[in-house]
């Protein structure tokens, strides 16, 4: 009944022992198909989890801690108001740094839309100040009030702040993805347990004969365990393969912020789904082993 012996026997394989339990087409096909389906779903749960994880990281790192101030004023006042804003910002708690974009920076920002030869000086282009906040953040309403007093042309655009709940949601989605993965494995275990129990009951007469000729329960159990483990492994490998293929051919867009087009793996992330087949096999091994010993104890 030792686990180590079972694992060794599982790997060694024993074609003769495999034959003592008749092949039951129905339960074999069902186990294969269900494992494949579960692995397919697991790939998507994993992709969802990883994609939302990346999204959460990006949103919370890059965006949630930056905002901009836009100053629109007649060219004569622009310089003075810029100074006023920078002074206010310096005195505001929660602001790590503030930087006025140079003409060259602004030119670079606008180039994609208007071309490189934009005559910036002739246009009433607002000045942009980039703010990076500390982790504690600043009081946006208080800052707005002070800006209205000191620099009437300044508008605080904390567009990124509304992304904080989005980043949180993405974080939750990542956890939900992992939870779905655990549930899928649990369902696989339940399904394999039921299939193994059905197979054991259907083979009560075979088990009787095996016992009469001196087979130990561990031998009988292993015959079933090996079969279900191999089926789960094969099914899961097929399901994982199809799942990966499906994700690989999903249309991808540059805008990776969109959850739909971002549903993919990146870099070494593609290796993660490879743990699904062995994980399914381990689940099937454990589930069948428990079911087999419980059923064998009950069979007189």
């Amino acid at each position, binding site marked *: *009944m030792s686990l180590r012996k079972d694992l060794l026997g599982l790997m060694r394989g*024993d074609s*003769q*022992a495999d*034959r*003592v339990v*008749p092949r039951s087409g129905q339960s074999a096909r069902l186990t294969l198909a269900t494992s494949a389906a579960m692995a397919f779903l697991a790939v998507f749960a994993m992709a969802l989890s990883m994609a939302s994880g990346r999204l959460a990281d990006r949103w919370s790192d890059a965006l949630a801690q930056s905002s901009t101030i836009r100053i629109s004023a007649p060219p004569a006042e622009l310089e003075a108001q810029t100074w006023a804003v920078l002074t206010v910002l310096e005195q505001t708690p929660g602001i790590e740094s503030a930087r006025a974009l140079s003409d060259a920076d602004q030119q670079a920002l606008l180039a994609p839309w208007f071309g490189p030869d934009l005559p910036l000086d002739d246009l009433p282009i607002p000045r942009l100040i980039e703010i990076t906040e500390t982790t504690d953040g600043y009081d946006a309403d208080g800052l707005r009030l002070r800006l209205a007093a000191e620099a009437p042309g300044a508008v605080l655009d904390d567009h990124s702040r509304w992304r904080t709940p989005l980043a949180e949601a993405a974080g939750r989605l990542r956890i939900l993805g992992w939870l779905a993965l655990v549930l899928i494995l649990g369902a696989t275990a339940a399904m394999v347990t039921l299939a193994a129990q059905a197979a054991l009951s259907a083979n009560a*007469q*075979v088990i*009787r*004969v*095996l*016992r*009469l*000729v*001196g*087979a*130990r*329960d*561990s*031998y009988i159990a292993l015959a079933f365990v090996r079969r279900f483990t191999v089926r789960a492994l094969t099914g899961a490998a097929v399901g994982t393969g199809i799942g990966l293929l499906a994700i690989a051919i999903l249309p991808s867009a540059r805008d990776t912020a969109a959850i739909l087009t971002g549903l993919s793996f990146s870099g070494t992330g593609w290796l993660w789904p490879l743990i699904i087949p062995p994980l399914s096999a381990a689940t099937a091994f454990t589930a069948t082993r428990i079911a087999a010993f419980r059923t064998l104890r009950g069979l007189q």
Partner: protein
Amino acid sequence: MIEMQDAAYGYGAEPLLSGLSLHLAPGSFHFLTGPSGAGKTTFLKLCYAELLPTGGQISIFGHTATGLSRDGIADIRQRIGVVHQDCQFLDHLPLTENIALPLTVTSKGGLVQESNLNELIGWVGLSARANAKPPELSGGERQRAALARAIIMDPDLILADEPTGNVDWDMSLRLLNLLVELNKLGKTVVIATHDLALIRAAKQRVQARVLRIQGGQIISAGADL
């Protein structure tokens, strides 16, 4: 080999067998007779721990039957060759594999020589049917296959339940001779049978004790045969 002390067994509340006290010595040859329904099969099942005594004590190879674990039972069965009255086979495997089954399940499958297996199958006259599945065999063929399976492990004790029930007289003698040969090699043999002619034939070849089950008791019936 097997020792019974006031052992009893009943399928329900009523005991079917009771007051069984006997000793099956190593190398002995026993016949077990009695009317149909007397409890011969039940007695043999007690000997290989398919049934456990409801009273008294049975010891098999020195182990108390009621104290045996599942693995312990499996281990003693590897030392006992049983010919079951209803010939239990795996119907999905060909005859050869069924006969080699006791070796397969103890992972001694690699040890059996193909030639030995074939010789044994030839001995019981089944060479032509070696690849047939058990359900395709006649009753007599099944019994012979069961005997072959019972002795392939080179067991210390052979329990045969009506091993000649479905075969003609010539084949009966052939099987009897096989069992007598094995007994001469030191194996203990117990044969349950109705066939008095077989017992008489055996007595010319070997020193056999005859046990009779009557009224739930075992009595020695040596002289009257």
